[in-house]
């Protein structure tokens, strides 16, 4: 069964067309990355799936419901590039926020928060304030918060984009572990080709003006991914394949310069 089914979706902002003719199916427990140059509509597509904005046309079905109903049923956990934590709440209280909104009883909340902090390896930091944590730790709190109510679908918009390379690679490993443990489906926006290949079961390559899906690259690296996955020949083949797909999208579009990972970092 598919968790997400998108057909013929488009979104216009005034006269600009952000995305157009989007067809995409995401199966249960998949890890799907959206990759493409800035402005190609990755965030827009993610936000349409999460019902943060409405599409101008087309249809989005999530867990056999409309996106709106899925949001009302709390099927989405969202993580942005910035952690967006509340300064006035402790780490534990930040993670508990969605549970408070969902009116979980206090005791159940406490147990759950403890479990989530364990999952992101932040046990012992319950009573810290967000600003007392490093950027990577803050992002882990925000992941714990997003997963606290066990959403079917985790939507992540460049969650590690603001972090340094080393922190990023460590969090990549952690995210895979969390993904395996939580059993949710992930849609992950990134600028980094290697990150997309390393994490995903499928990489969706997008091209700009108007934002379209130019290719879907299945990633057949074996699970679970480890530190040595990045050194496998197959990994490099897939990175090359995604890179070429990206350039193809560009050549079709002509004028735009070739993007590299560095330029976006």
């Amino acid at each position, binding site marked *: 069964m598919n968790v997400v089914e998108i057909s013929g979706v488009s979104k216009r902002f005034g006269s600009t067309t952000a995305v157009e003719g989007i067809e995409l199916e995401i199966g249960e427990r998949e890890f799907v990355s959206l990759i493409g140059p800035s402005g190609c509509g990755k965030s827009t597509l993610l936000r349409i799936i*999460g*019902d*943060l904005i409405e599409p101008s046309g087309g249809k989005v079905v999530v867990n056999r419901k409309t996106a709106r109903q899925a*949001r*009302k*049923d*709390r099927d*989405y*956990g*969202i993580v*942005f590039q*910035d952690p*967006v934590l*509340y*300064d*006035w709440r402790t780490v534990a209280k930040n993670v508990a*926020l*969605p549970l*408070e*909104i*969902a009116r979980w009883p206090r005791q159940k909340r406490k147990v759950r928060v403890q479990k989530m902090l364990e999952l992101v*390896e*932040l*046990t*012992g*930091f319950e009573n*810290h*304030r*967000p*600003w*007392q*944590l*490093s950027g990577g*730790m803050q992002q882990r709190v925000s992941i714990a918060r997003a997963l606290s*109510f066990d959403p079917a679908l985790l939507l992540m918009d460049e969650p590690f984009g603001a972090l340094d390379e080393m922190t990023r690679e460590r969090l990549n490993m952690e995210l895979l572990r969390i993904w395996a443990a939580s059993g949710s489906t992930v849609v992950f926006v990134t600028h980094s080709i290697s990150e997309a290949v390393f994490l995903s079961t499928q990489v969706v390559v997008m091209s700009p003006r108007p934002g379209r899906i130019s290719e879907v690259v299945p990633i057949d690296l074996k699970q679970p991914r480890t530190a040595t996955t990045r050194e496998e020949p197959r990994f490099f083949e897939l990175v090359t394949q995604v890179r070429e797909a990206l350039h193809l999208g560009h050549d079709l579009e002509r004028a735009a310069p070739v993007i590299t990972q560095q330029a976006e970092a």
Partner: protein
Amino acid sequence: MATMAAELPVEPRTEVIRRAAARVGTSILVLAALWGLWEGYRWLWIQEGWTWPFIVNDTTMPHLHDIFAALWAKASPGGVGPRLITVLVKGALFTAKEAAAGFAIGALGGFALGVLLAHFRLLQRGLLPWIVASQTVPILVVAPMVVVWANPKLPDSLKDWGAVALIAAFLTFFPVTVNTIRGLQSADRRALELMRSYAAGDWRILWKLRFPAALPYIFAALKISATASVVGALIGELPSSIPNGLGAQIINFSQYYTTQPRGLWATNVIAAALGISFFLIVLIAEKLVVRRAPENLV
């Protein structure tokens, strides 16, 4: 992960105490400097006989120690009865009651109005100009009218001072309303989107996100309002001939200003102290309530 704890900024108790001591020290230095400036200015102007911008003498600028001595002296010229400071503090407490009640009414009312106007944009566009206009009304003219209008409606326990509290409230609510609107609308856009993804209703978004986000703005307004409520209470007392407050003392001592300037100056000192205490109380409340990253504090 355990090693990460070591990276966190830890603040030892001694550091906190050292910082507090430095602060007290600075305050004392500033006070001493102001004292020196006053006395130095006075001395220089008298010495040189300068008359611009005004003539300096014991009436226009008495010695500061004379003012404090006057506070300690008996209130009436005959040297009998209570000390001046006793009389003034009694008045100040009465005025403080009016100001505190006015502050509470104004702050709560101003906040409620702010929440309402932030929520209903249309109402905001229609009503805000009138609220602004209300603040241009000369309070000295309106104050006696308010007393006359409100007194008959007030129960005995609230008579007179209740009316003055309303005038203080009138000067208090405006900054609170304006900053509440701004503060509620200052919530991070993505934080609002997260709330949306948790399927949170308007009411919960207000209490769990918008209100805490607005707190620094609200406290900025409360600090202004704290002193404004004292001024409002004093002004309210002046034209309404309420005998118990500091306002009556101001009127009393201004009649004798040319012969006994120290009385008015002493009243001035007490009124200022009242305003400063109100401000400090709000400041302390802010320190207790508003928790922000150090870089986000104003």
